[in-house]
């Protein structure tokens, strides 16, 4: 008497029925694994912005001494300053007073906010006007072969 011919009693499942159930579950699971990402693509969840830890501002040679440039650090502005001696410094470009974007003033070698005439020195310290505290500082490193270095701005 083979196993397949074994009579089924109360509470027992036929082999064919069992396989159908397993295949059905497999089919539903597979369909869900396709459809769920599709659903999330069409209806994306509200996400918090990923924190940016570093950006490449460009080639060092692109920034002339005694100049400043606004670069994108995530979705916020940063100011990269090349000092008269060629050194780089970077700070958040968001004025600590009312969030305006600051700029570099080459004639006085200061960081200036045009909105309310706030001034910061090249160490990022608030020295005049309404800004209540210094600018947040970033680290600046040069990466690459001499003459081809990239300026990398990163969180300290």
């Amino acid at each position, binding site marked *: 008497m083979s196993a397949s011919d074994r009579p089924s009693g109360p509470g027992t499942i036929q082999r064919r029925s069992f396989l159908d159930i397993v295949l059905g579950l497999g089919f539903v699971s597979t369909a869900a694994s396709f459809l769920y990402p599709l659903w999330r693509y069409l209806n994306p969840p509200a996400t918090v912005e990923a924190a940016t830890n570093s950006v490449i501002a460009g080639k060092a040679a692109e920034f002339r001494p005694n100049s400043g440039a606004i670069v994108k650090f995530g979705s916020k502005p940063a100011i990269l300053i090349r000092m008269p001696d060629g050194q780089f410094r970077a700070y958040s470009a968001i004025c600590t007073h009312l969030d305006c974007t600051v700029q570099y003033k080459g004639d006085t070698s200061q960081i200036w906010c045009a*909105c309310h005439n706030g001034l910061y020195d090249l160490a990022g310290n608030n020295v005049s006007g309404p800004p209540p505290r210094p600018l947040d500082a970033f680290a600046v490193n040069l990466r690459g072969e001499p003459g081809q270095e990239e300026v990398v701005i990163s969180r300290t």
Partner: protein
Amino acid sequence: MRSLILRMFLATASGAWLLLCAGPAGAQPAQATGCETCHRNEASESLSAPARDFALADVHRDRGFTCVNCHGGDPNATDKAAAKAPATGFRGKPSGQAVIAVCSNCHSDAALMRKYAPRQRVDQAAEYATSVHGQQLAKGDTKVATCVSCHGAHGVRLVSDAQSPVYPLNVATTCTKCHGDAEHMKGYTLNGGPLPTDQGEKYAKSVHHAAMVERSDLSAPTCNDCHGNHGAAPPGVDAIANVCGTCHTVFATKFALSTHAAIFERGCVECHNNHDILEPTDAMVGTDEKALCSTCHSEGDNGHKAAMAMRAGIEKLKAAISHSEEQVAAVENAGIEMGDEALTVREAANHLTVARTELHAFDPAAVQAVLDEGLGLTTKVDEAAAAAQSELSFRRTGLAISLAAILLVVVALQLKIRTLKPHA
């Protein structure tokens, strides 16, 4: 004999004077003197407290000064009478003008102060003479504040010491000890009425107080930043815009260009108050009930039209920025990078801030020019967001078509399988 006595007296007196003027030889903390030995044991609190306070923490003691430098007397004498004999230069507890004289004896001496605090000013006494306190004292009013009223007499701390009564966070409390006391201020007048004593309560509601106390911004103004410290006096009507302009430079420059500069009797104070300076809002401008402009301007006049135009322009840019922010957020949330547009929206917000500043010149055309620049930026962002939305829609349509094609193939395969004959 008389000549000898006179010479001895002069020698003693000049020695005492030199001691008062020259200060200690070194900058080592002074040791307890005979004065303290007796005064600590005095039953009277008013006599024992000075010795106790001076011994605990005192900037003068830390630099080697002793009781004698301010009070005179002979700390080495063994009995009270000898210690306080006239020949010792004993002057007891100075009060009124004598306090100013004792303090300025050193603090107005540039050569002496250079040894201890080279950057410290030496014109405090001259400034004090110009203050309301100094002028009242000169008239014989001994209720007014002198040096010790604010700095303390014994246990004097540096201004930079957080426990000093003149540390920025403590100045308002120190001033209101007298200026918040209605009984003490009784008899003093301002513009014909009694001098108010609610300045401290009003200041506690102000943005300046919030900046200093809640946000620990010690650069925020407290009483002495507007009134002066040693030369304390209410700023004159003509000086108010200048006083506010020491920090709010751009506003002061714009306001000076405005028609209101010649009309407003109290300058900035007309709209912003003096002690209870609240957070400014856009609602202050305009023609509705909450707007300050409508207190003077009525419908039909140029000021009314200007206020309405400036407020409408500001509200329009605010709405445009808000709309652009929503558009950028929606597109970024769908997975398309909009970093440049986010920065452009921030730039538009800068223009809103600049327009609020420009508003102080009360020139609607100048305000509108700034607002238009901001609106131009939000238009660009909206266009970029619309293009991104279009791209997103295109991708979704493509996805729907490809899914439909896959579904069609699945169904077709199913139908095909049914038509196949089973193996024999």
